């Protein structure tokens, strides 16, 4: 019965196996979608059912606790939501649809293993499982040009960061003679004043900075966001960020409030916010804009983690959920408006308020949530993060972050202006949403607003989850 705590992982392994078989017998794309939707929905149920499980496997290298289970829940939710978008998977050739689901499932599996691993090598293997699935997913898009370039860029910069991370892990091992997080957490606080341990930890963090697209590990983001199929981008933009935030919280908590590390992270957070927001100002493509906004959001979420206090970690968990919902809502609009699977320029949103009022409303809520305007979940997330930073006395950091928020509002408003104000040059047909898609859109809008107004239970869950970190 001990293997039951391994439930979500085994389930997603099974999902991957199902799609492996389907890809061999090559059925039609429609059946793939329905199978994927069913299996993903069941996956959410399985992970939620195992939310309260606890236990340890492989002599402490793999631990199942509330922290990991909450993130597994978020990951399976992300997987489910992305599969919901795949009803017309026009960006990817029909024959490759089962491979798409297969890779999506293995990537989710990899990230699930990742959030539970408490040993550096396990962590590395899990991360690479997730990464290699993504390397294959990005160039899967049909059409010529961008996707291959994006895929190669992503792959090269990805393995370069992996190398850095491995080097960092090796250095950490050399400094502490252990790879177990539980022992590292005991030894590191004293050792962090030595350059070897400090650099080792910092380089280990790099692997997750890369996933989070934090400046200066962001170079892949715009190309990949634009080059990959819309559904793949939605997955990269939501689920992988959530996993990266979880791991950063776990690794940074080992340092036990080390000041120099906090200062380095503050510098990275400020650079990332400022760079992302400033470059986003001039973007014309909506997905590219979301990529730069993701770079900025990497900075905001890091503020919670670098505060290194219980409120901060809980705020980071809350922010991960908030980020998942609001980014997904934006990609929902992208997928539905660009139904032919092409990229979506901001100007192409023109007239959206007449073509589909509900999508326009979802876009407004999603974008305002990204911009941190209440009463949305994005605002509440920022508020929690800022409260945590203020508890540590980082007043200037909060002020700089708020100024960044105002800068970011400029480009978010440009998106809304296109959707609500501009009229298309030629009359475009109304966008017909199927009934499930309408419900999904409405649910996302409600979740963003209700999550923003009633953060109580979610925040308490986040607080309970991060208890294992300190």
């Amino acid at each position, binding site marked *: 019965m001990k293997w039951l705590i391994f439930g979500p992982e085994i389930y997603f392994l099974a999902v991957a196996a199902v799609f492996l078989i389907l890809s061999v017998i090559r059925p039609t794309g429609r059946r793939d979608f329905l199978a994927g939707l069913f299996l993903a929905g069941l996956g959410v149920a399985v992970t939620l059912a195992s939310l309260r499980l606890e236990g340890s496997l492989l002599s402490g290298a793999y631990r199942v606790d509330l922290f990991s289970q909450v993130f597994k829940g978020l990951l399976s939710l992300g997987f489910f939501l992305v599969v919901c978008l795949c009803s017309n998977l026009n960006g990817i050739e029909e024959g490759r649809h089962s491979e798409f689901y297969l890779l999506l499932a293995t990537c989710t599996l990899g990230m699930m293993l990742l959030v539970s691993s408490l040993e550096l090598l396990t962590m590395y293997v899990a991360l690479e499982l997730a990464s290699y699935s993504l390397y294959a997913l990005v160039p899967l898009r049909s059409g010529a040009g961008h996707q291959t370039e994006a895929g190669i860029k992503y792959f090269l910069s990805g393995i370069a960061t992996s190398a850095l991370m491995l080097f960092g892990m090796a250095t950490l091992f050399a400094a502490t003679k252990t790879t177990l997080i539980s022992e590292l957490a005991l030894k590191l606080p004293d050792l962090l004043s030595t350059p070897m341990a400090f650099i080792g930890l910092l380089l280990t963090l790099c692997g997750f900075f890369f996933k989070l697209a934090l400046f200066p590990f962001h170079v892949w983001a715009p190309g990949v966001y634009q080059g990959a199929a819309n559904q793949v981008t939605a997955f990269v933009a939501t689920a992988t960020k959530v996993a990266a935030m979880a791991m950063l919280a776990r690794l940074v908590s080992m340092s036990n409030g080390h000041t120099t590390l906090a200062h380095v992270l503050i510098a990275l957070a400020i650079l990332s916010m400022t760079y992302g927001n400033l470059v986003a100002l001039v973007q014309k493509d909506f997905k590219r804009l979301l990529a730069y906004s993701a770079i900025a959001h990497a900075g905001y979420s890091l503020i919670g983690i670098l505060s290194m206090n219980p409120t901060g970690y809980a705020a980071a968990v809350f922010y991960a959920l908030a980020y998942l919902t609001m980014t997904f809502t934006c990609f929902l609009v992208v997928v539905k408006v660009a139904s032919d699977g092409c990229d979506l320029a901001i100007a192409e949103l023109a007239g959206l308020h007449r073509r589909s009022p509900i999508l326009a409303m979802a876009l407004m809520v999603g974008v305002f949530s990204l911009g941190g305007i209440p009463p949305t979940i994005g605002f509440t997330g920022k508020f929690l993060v800022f409260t945590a930073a203020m*508890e540590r006395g980082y*007043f200037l950091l909060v002020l700089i972050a708020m100024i960044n*928020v105002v800068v970011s509002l400029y480009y978010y408003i440009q998106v*809304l202006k296109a959707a*609500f*104000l501009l009229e298309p040059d030629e009359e475009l047909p109304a966008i017909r949403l199927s009934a499930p898609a309408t419900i999904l859109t409405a649910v996302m809008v409600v979740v963003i607003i209700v999550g923003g107004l*009633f953060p109580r239970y979610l*925040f*308490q869950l986040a607080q309970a989850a991060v208890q294992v970190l300190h």
Partner: protein
Amino acid sequence: MSVELTYFPYLSCILLSCLVGLLVILFIPRERETLVKGVSLVFSGISLALSIYVYCAYDRTHGGLQFVEKLLWVEPLGIHYFNGADGFNLPLILLTGIVHFTGVLTMWELRGRVKEFFAFAFVLVLGVFGFFMSMDLFFLFVWYDVSLFPMYPLIAIWGTTRKEYGALKLFLYLLAGSALVLPGIVYIAVASGLHTFDILALMQPGALTPGQQRFAFLLFYLGFGILAGVWPFHTWSPVGHVAAPTSVSMIHAGVLMKVGAFGILRVGIFLCPLGWEYWAPVMAVLATIGIVYGIFVGLAQTDLKYVVAYSSVSHMGIVGLGLATVTEEGLNGAIFQMFAHGLMTALLFSSLGYIYDKTHTKSIPDLGGMSKVMPVASGYFIVAALAGMGVPGFANFWAEVTVFISALKVYPALGVLAICALVLSALYMLRVVQRAFYGPRNERYAQLPDVSFGLGLPRMILVAAILLFGLFPRLMLDLVQTAVVPFMGGLPR
């Protein structure tokens, strides 16, 4: 979950009537324009009725915070859903009710995207009501931003002159203000060591050191001051007011600018009284510059709406001057001035909106002799202009007199300067009235219809309210006094 509910939750019902109105509108098909307007009128009427009831039912002999609704919201952070009414916010709740109701009536002839307009207007008013009645910093900030973001679509879609520029400028300016307010709020909650956002708990003396109060007050003054149109952060306001459609100008100049001034009072002055005393001279100087500046720039305008917009800058300067005196009369006058100016400026924009809808011009030289063409519409404008000049008999007279008397005591030089400027403002308002409404008639507009009874109704309500509080100022002054006296008495000296 601890609930403290001593009264029927009238205040929440005001919010609820806006929220339900919004939801109902969202589910009406967009072709049913009249139905949308009717629903807006009904629900804005309900919120007006409730705000009148709360204003009258408030027990003046007891004073203090009444109609309290308190609900623990987010336990670990000390966030409460906490509403209450006192002598400070009651006038403003009433003002919001009146201006929104009359605003809906004013926009009765709106064509095109009617459903969205009234939906956004409800969001805006929901935020304003919530802001005025909230006693918790977290909710205060949430309502504050809720009242700001609908301004962008409202101006950019339905506005006129340079609407996109005006809307964007206004939006970014106001949110830049909130970028100072939010760190300030979190700073206060954390620095006090109380880890609560409850304003009453944070008000206790000694929660913050004098240095912290001086720092936090500056943040709130600058942050809310942008919205209150404090010179030199006022530049968004004339552009935004001119670009906005009529009822949005009414709500915006009439109510939203008061949100800024009230924020300075409720957050800055309540929580950082020592900072208030420290920065009061700076506030007084900036406010006086605002009064004088608004009048002189207004003198040079040829666009009628710009004239009104700049007069708002100068009238909000009077509010600022009242707050800066740190006296009972000054505070009282400032609150009264917020109320009176809200009604007066709503009337100005409302009557101006009618004239613009018919003539499609706001240029003073183009108009000319309008009182012969539209005697009633012109009448409303002239009444509002007289009220703005501080002619006795109108509510504004009492407000301005109260502020200036206390200003003369505390800052004699600035007081004299402001009074001189105000005399000058009478001159220029009369000049505008004379050029636009008297003199030779412009034949192009000779055939235009005058304002009908239905459309005149909102203006009549506003005139009636201005006269009511002008003739019986104690209806308001006494109420405000119930809040001001205990507050000033409790200040650490």
